[in-house]
């Protein structure tokens, strides 16, 4: 097997084909971004409203509004809406992320105009029936009970609440009390303030050039009301929280969930790209330092990762793993050791190349096909990054050097800036100093 002895040459990945994004404005003034692929049977349409948590007057208004939109319109009740969407084999997702409410549909091209007509009724004439609201609350509370029985969920909730504070839009957690408190009027208010034409973006992918598709979208947009855009009350985004170590002991002591993290910044920050690079080196891919040390060398965990989570107005950085309860102390000291090494030593050239190539592969994948590409485009548009910067963004991430990574590590990886959350270990068995 002579051929196997020689590894094939690795070809450079500097040729990243960027998607062709058509940017148009609807007759009614709504920006539309579309990536066209001819002869594609499936189409995707997403309407995005800036209507997430930072805009809420009442906690959980965004997520409950998103959920309730499809639960009945003037002409179609909840069951009829569901039956028609299912009949066309369409997948309709209406959900609130932390920053937005998105209405996303994926369906066969031939049914797109029929689906847009249903979406029009959902968005323009929702009735938010009281009975559906009560049912939703009951079901959400039941689901929350299950979620709260998972260490990983509890530890994530404690960490984000610690980083941002429990009254911050990105920091507060859902609870039975909050669900019970929300009223139909709160939902109507949120809907009326934020679901309108001047607060909307549209993203399309697939073979979406057909006249009937365009005109069904135009019809919907024409009918969406025009309203004054409500400016954000930025005082809500101030952070007032003090650092400490949060440890919660739960009933099931087989394994402890470790989450450590800190506040960072949003995507427009100048440190964003070098930080993404640093996070990849530390815990962002399979050959990362944390995975190599803690999983592949010591076998302490099934998985460990680090993640930079950027939102429209802020962001956080987190390292997460689940380990045997008596290995919590050892794991924590290994994590901090790896952070320190990145603050003291330059990342070797070979590893820099590896991460550069890994990230280049990621970019190529992000921009492979219309459905992947539109997701990447959406995230840039919402962060108000001009699409003309696309090429330079790819270049920036490829030109980051080891000194920049060291600088970012020194700036952001100081142990004292991190919250430390441990859920599932009791006082004796966690072996922490």
């Amino acid at each position: 097997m002579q051929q196997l002895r020689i590894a094939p040459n690795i070809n450079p990945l500097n040729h990243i084909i960027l998607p062709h994004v058509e940017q148009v404005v609807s007759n009614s003034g709504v920006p539309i971004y579309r990536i066209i692929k001819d002869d594609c049977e499936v189409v995707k349409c997403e309407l995005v409203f800036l209507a997430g948590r930072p805009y809420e007057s009442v906690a959980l208004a965004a997520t409950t509004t998103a959920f309730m939109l499809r639960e009945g319109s003037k002409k179609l009740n909840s069951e009829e809406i569901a039956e028609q969407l299912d009949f066309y084999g369409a997948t309709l997702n209406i959900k609130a992320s932390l920053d937005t409410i998105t209405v996303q549909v994926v369906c066969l091209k031939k049914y797109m105009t029929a689906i847009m007509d249903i979406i029009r009724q959902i968005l323009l004439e929702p009735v938010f029936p009281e009975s559906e609201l009560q049912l939703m609350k009951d079901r959400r509370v039941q689901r929350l009970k299950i979620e709260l029985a998972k260490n990983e969920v509890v530890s994530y909730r404690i960490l984000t609440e610690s980083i941002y504070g429990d009254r911050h839009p990105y920091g507060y957690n859902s609870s039975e009390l909050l669900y019970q408190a929300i009223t139909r009027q709160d939902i109507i208010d949120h809907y009326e303030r934020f679901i309108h034409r001047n607060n909307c973006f549209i993203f399309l992918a697939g073979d979406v050039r057909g006249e009937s598709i365009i005109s069904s979208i135009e019809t919907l947009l024409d009918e969406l009301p025009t309203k004054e855009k409500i400016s954000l009350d930025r005082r809500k985004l101030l952070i007032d929280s003090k650092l400490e170590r949060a440890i919660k002991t739960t009933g099931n002591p087989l394994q402890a969930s470790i989450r450590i993290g800190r506040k960072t910044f949003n995507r427009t920050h100048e440190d964003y790209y070098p930080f993404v690079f640093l996070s990849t080196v530390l815990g962002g891919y399979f050959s990362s330092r944390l995975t190599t040390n803690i999983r592949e060398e010591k076998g302490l965990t099934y998985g460990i990762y680090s993640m930079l989570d950027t939102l429209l107005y802020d962001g956080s950085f987190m390292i997460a793993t689940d380990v045997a309860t008596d290995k919590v102390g050892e794991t924590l000291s290994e994590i901090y050791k790896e952070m320190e090494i990145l603050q003291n030593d330059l990342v070797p050239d070979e590893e820099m190349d590896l991460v550069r190539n890994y990230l280049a592969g990621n970019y190529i994948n992000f921009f492979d096909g219309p459905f992947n590409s539109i997701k990447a485009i959406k995230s840039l548009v919402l962060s108000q990054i001009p699409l003309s910067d696309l090429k330079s963004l790819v270049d920036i991430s490829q030109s980051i050097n080891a000194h920049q990574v060291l600088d970012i590590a020194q700036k952001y990886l100081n142990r004292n800036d991190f919250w430390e959350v441990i859920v599932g270990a009791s006082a004796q068995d966690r072996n922490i100093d």
Partner: protein
Amino acid sequence: MIHYEKYTLDNGLTVLIEQDKTTTMAAVNVLYKVGSKNEDPDKTGFAHLFEHLMFGGSDNAPDFDTPLQMAGGENNAFTNNDYTNFYDVVPVQNIETALWLEADRMAHLTLNQEALDVQKKVVVEEFKEVCLNKPYGDTWHHLSALTYQKHHYQWPTIGKEISHIEKAHLGDVADFFQRYYHPQNAILSISSPLSSYEILTIVKKYFEEIPSHSTNYLQSPAEPEQRESRSLTVTGEIPIPMFVLAYHMPGRTHEEYYACDLISDILANGRSARLYNRLVKEIKCVSEIDCYLTGSMDNGLIIIEGKPAENVSIEECIQHVWHEIQLLQTELVDERELQKVKNKAVSSIAMSDLNVLNKAMSMAYFENLGQIEIMNEQEEYYESVTPQDIQAAAKKYLRLENMSQLNYLPAINPS
């Protein structure tokens, strides 16, 4: 529709190639025809443990991940009852690296005690994280043992118990590699913008000389017909009760699979499905309800699982489930409802065919069933199901004597 070409190398390796000129990525998928059903009942979890060891490096590539990441690629793997599947997604200019790595670990995987010891620990933590430390995480441990008495589907892929993983020996590992990991027992599938000629040239370069071994595989006994209903109640640290009903049905290639799949869609696929409409929205007796098929190669299961709403008993929920089952058995489903579930099935096939990795996996999956030609006939099979077929399958399989019931109850009553 996936336009593929199929080749068999002299050493028995099946190669499936699809060309998609619109992509810049390549997906390389290697399926080994070994799953947890091929395990010894005293050494369960072995197929999955072995999957982990496949990342430990091989003779010419001491580290599997580094060259692939250097090539801009990503990879992963999964194991189920029936097979073990490895996949790599890489920018097409570096597809050769992925094929070389897959060939080298098929030819000479490095097996050593140290790597085995580390991966045993990793899998034990996985066992704890996925099965023991989550509410209802051990559902499949209980359900597999309840529903299968002879067939090796009676334990889940992760293994029956942690001790089986802890006592795995290097000798067993070497035997397992010898027995199952060779060209004759593998399917290589590739979806990329390159022509089949270009792909086949690279494939031959690296795979052609890898020898195949004997085909003495451990086979599972067949599951005898279930003749009376079974039930099991588990109490544990769970927040709210849960019930699971499981009914035996034929394997994936049986003609009635499609009627059973549409039954599960009529009952629980989408917000207009019957169980959701009746039990969640009208009667409000459950907070969650689902119905799905295990879809295994041998005798599979139709699963209905639900969580009662607050202060509703499991028995009451099950009465309502039975009522819906009886409706399927006594009244023909109307044309619009049947067309609805068919439309959903057809559009979900169209959506999954958009991505190189899905397509490469699909080719390997259907080839492993022994019938790759049915891959592109799925729509027709679904379309040809009649209301009478639905009724007949409901009568034949959704019977009390063919059912196993698993109840989960909280150990401490919250009230």
